[in-house]
């Protein structure tokens, strides 16, 4: 490899919001043909840095140089013109359901001032094919964007971002919603782009991503660069720099557990699917890992009464258990926190019920307020206890959810389902958008519960290791126990099968 060419240089970047300094002096050089992994806990300043680069707002102080020239974008469009391509995390927003992939690829051209008034399908298709070809992707141009899997949607977003002669590509947690196989495809695309001289800033927490891709890892903490690690990236050191202390032991110790709480016997999730057997015991944490779409969410939803299962039987405490709704499951002590807390657990923050206390109490109102009238301070008390016990950083029980970071929001979800004793606690991807520190708190709280049987679905095997007494891999609706002894050799179990 030739000597690296600096593309982007940052000098002493500062950015303050209100009383908090999001960036407190960042100096960084980004080089062409290199993948730079940007790491950092929530609130460390990653998003702020990306927003400065992509022109969302200007820095308070400091200079940015792009290809040696002063770079001060006044808008995201200006940053894109200058050659900074940003792909945000939620790629569903890259296209419009009902429009084709081709339309999505050239969407930004429709809004350009020099766009023709009339566009024919053929001209759109031709332009889109050129965009896809330039990125070197093979995309189904005529499909509806909404039908694409998350990986293909990601490709569309990347292709479109690259269509304007980008010099720097910024990817925000691109593998968060990808299966192992899809992620592998994305990695080869990124390696190809790197070989063609593109500079890439890759934001991720996944050690497997970083080990495979990164030429260098930069860790932000408290708005400053806490570590700058060369390839091969020492991931434990990076994680330690992220949270500011070493992670003593990554994997959780398996423990003894109590009696059988829940049994799935020949459970069939979708008609024609294979039967599943699973036993959950009191006081144990079982993790379910495997690629996206393998049926993890469906299994949890079936046990939690959210979707019906096609066959087989569940037994709860030895008795047949067939919940027809979450309501019935909750009444039986089986509670489910769905994936994506905003979609499955929260009301909008400025809507009634959007405070910490009200979020925690929602499933328990009937028990706590049998007369129907919301009297007494039970709601506030439970929330105050949870804030202390789970170390939730909030101004108090009445704090609006939007004022909390992702990790603290997730703690509120856990507080909700731990507010009343449950027999089975089901958590679907509880660590999405949760920083390492909050994740450790959540794991500690889950493992401290020695009466509930806890089943956690996570597509990140590292999370499974840190969390669980037992781990299963679910792939194509088949369960296989994961032998923890061989852990180091199989960092990405989903890819192995």
């Amino acid at each position, binding site marked *: 490899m030739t000597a690296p060419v600096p593309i982007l240089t940052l000098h002493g970047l500062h950015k303050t919001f209100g009383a908090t300094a999001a960036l407190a002096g960042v100096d960084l050089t980004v080089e062409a043909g290199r993948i730079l992994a940007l790491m950092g806990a929530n609130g460390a300043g990653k998003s702020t840095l990306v927003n400065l680069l992509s022109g969302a707002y200007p820095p308070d102080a400091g200079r940015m140089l792009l290809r040696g020239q002063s770079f001060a974008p006044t808008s995201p469009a200006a940053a894109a013109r200058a050659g900074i391509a940003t792909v945000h995390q939620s790629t569903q927003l890259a296209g419009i359901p009902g429009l084709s992939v081709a339309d999505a690829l050239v969407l930004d051209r429709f809004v350009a001032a020099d766009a023709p008034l009339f566009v024919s399908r053929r001209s759109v298709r031709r332009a889109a094919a050129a965009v896809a070809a330039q990125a070197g992707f093979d995309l189904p141009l005529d499909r509806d964007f909404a039908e694409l899997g998350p990986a293909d949607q990601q490709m569309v977003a990347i292709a479109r971002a690259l269509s304007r002669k980008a010099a720097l590509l910024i990817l925000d947690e691109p593998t968060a919603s990808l299966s192992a196989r899809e992620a592998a495809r994305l990695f080869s695309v990124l390696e190809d782009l790197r070989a063609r001289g593109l500079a890439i800033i890759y934001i991720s927490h996944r050690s497997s991503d970083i080990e495979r891709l990164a030429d260098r890892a930069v860790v932000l903490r408290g708005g400053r660069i806490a570590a700058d690690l060369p390839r091969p990236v020492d991931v434990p050191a990076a994680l330690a720099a992220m949270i500011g202390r070493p992670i003593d032991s990554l994997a959780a110790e398996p423990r003894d557990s109590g009696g059988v709480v829940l049994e799935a016997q020949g459970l069939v999730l979708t008609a024609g699917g294979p039967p599943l057997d699973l036993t959950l015991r009191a006081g144990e944490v079982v993790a379910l890992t495997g690629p996206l779409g393998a049926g993890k969410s469906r299994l949890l939803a079936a046990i939690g009464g959210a979707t019906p299962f096609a066959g087989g039987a569940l037994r709860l405490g030895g008795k047949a258990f067939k919940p027809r709704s979450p*309501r019935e499951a909750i009444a039986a002590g089986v509670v489910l*926190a*769905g994936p994506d807390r905003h979609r499955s657990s*929260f009301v909008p923050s400025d*809507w*009634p*019920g959007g405070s910490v206390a009200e979020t925690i109490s*929602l499933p328990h*109102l009937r028990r706590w307020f049998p007369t129907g*009238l919301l009297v007494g301070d039970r709601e506030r008390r439970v929330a105050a206890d949870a804030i202390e016990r789970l170390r939730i950083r909030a101004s108090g029980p009445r704090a609006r959810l939007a004022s909390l970071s992702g990790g603290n929001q997730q703690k509120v979800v856990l507080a909700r389902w731990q507010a009343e004793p449950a027999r089975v606690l089901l958590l679907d991807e509880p660590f999405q958008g949760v920083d390492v520190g909050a994740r450790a708190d959540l794991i500690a709280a889950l493992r401290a519960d020695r009466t509930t049987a806890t089943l956690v679905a996570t597509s990140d095997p590292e999370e499974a290791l840190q969390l669980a007494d037992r781990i299963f891999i679910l792939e194509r609706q088949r369960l296989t126990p994961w032998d923890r002894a061989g852990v180091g050799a199989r960092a990405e179990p989903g890819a192995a099968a």
Partner: protein
Amino acid sequence: MSDPPAGELGAPAAVPRAPVTARAWPVARRVRQTGLLALLAAMVVSFARADPAFLQIANLMSVLQSVSVVAILAAGVTVTLAVGGFDLSIGAVAASSVMAASYAMVVWGLDAAATVPMVLAFGAGVGLVNAALIIWLRIPDLLATLAMNFLLTGLQLIPTAGRSITPGLILPSGESADGVFDPHFLEIGRARLGGVLPVPVLLMLGIAVVLHVLTQHTRFGRLFYAIGGNETAARLAGAPTRVLRLSAYVISGTLSAVGGLVIAARVGRGDISSGSSLLLDAVAAALIGYAVLDRRYPNVFGTVVGAIFVGVLLNGLTMLNAPYYTQDFVKGAVLVGALSLTFGLGRRQS
């Protein structure tokens, strides 16, 4: 450092640079929170100065009486808005309730004790049908209730072949109806408690208090809002979402029927054109209610204040000899202003 006194009226020019934005937002917020109530107070004061008769109890009661039906309907819509729905059939339910009540008494010769429960059941029934269309057939709420509005507007004309109902009405069959309006029934619209408080105003206040408590201080209200905020989350938290949404439409249908009863009792005849402006007025009141106290969500208190706000404004302008035909324009202007207050001002930061 010359930090200026943080008085309410602190002169902006003297404020040093950085804090301007930091302080401007709380001020803007306070303006939004108290804006409509302050405006209402200002209106009352200035109308009273223009014409002292405005403040007479009789006039104030007539203002409240004039908004009572709209406020009752709007309170019902507010409940459907809280569950994330919308009921556009309220105007037609009220109008057909007027016809149903009149028909029951004039044609069938029923008394108040039979008519009132029957009409209330009719309103609740429409609510059930609305709920069935929305919940089981999954028709979007706006479309389902708009269709129901259309259907009822037409249905109410059929029994009398498009005639208004008065005693002695000639039926399509050629017979003449010989029933009359039960005097007890007419009292719903005309009696005054202690010679001062009109029954419709009493009904409005009672319904407002009950619904306010229901939505703000009971677990049912909490669940209503939870469904409106995120139905999936409410269902996963164990809320019986279908039952609750259904009850919201039944409440709204029943309250619309109450509104219809009040109109029928006040007018004393089944007028086919009654209630033509009710729907828009009630929806406007509910939407103005978003801006009252800057809540930004449907709330019964705001809705009733919104209805009263419009009533005070119209009454005052009428007193000042503003022509009748300007009323809709005034209502529209208030609504645009209130919505701007709710959705526009000071939201750029988020």
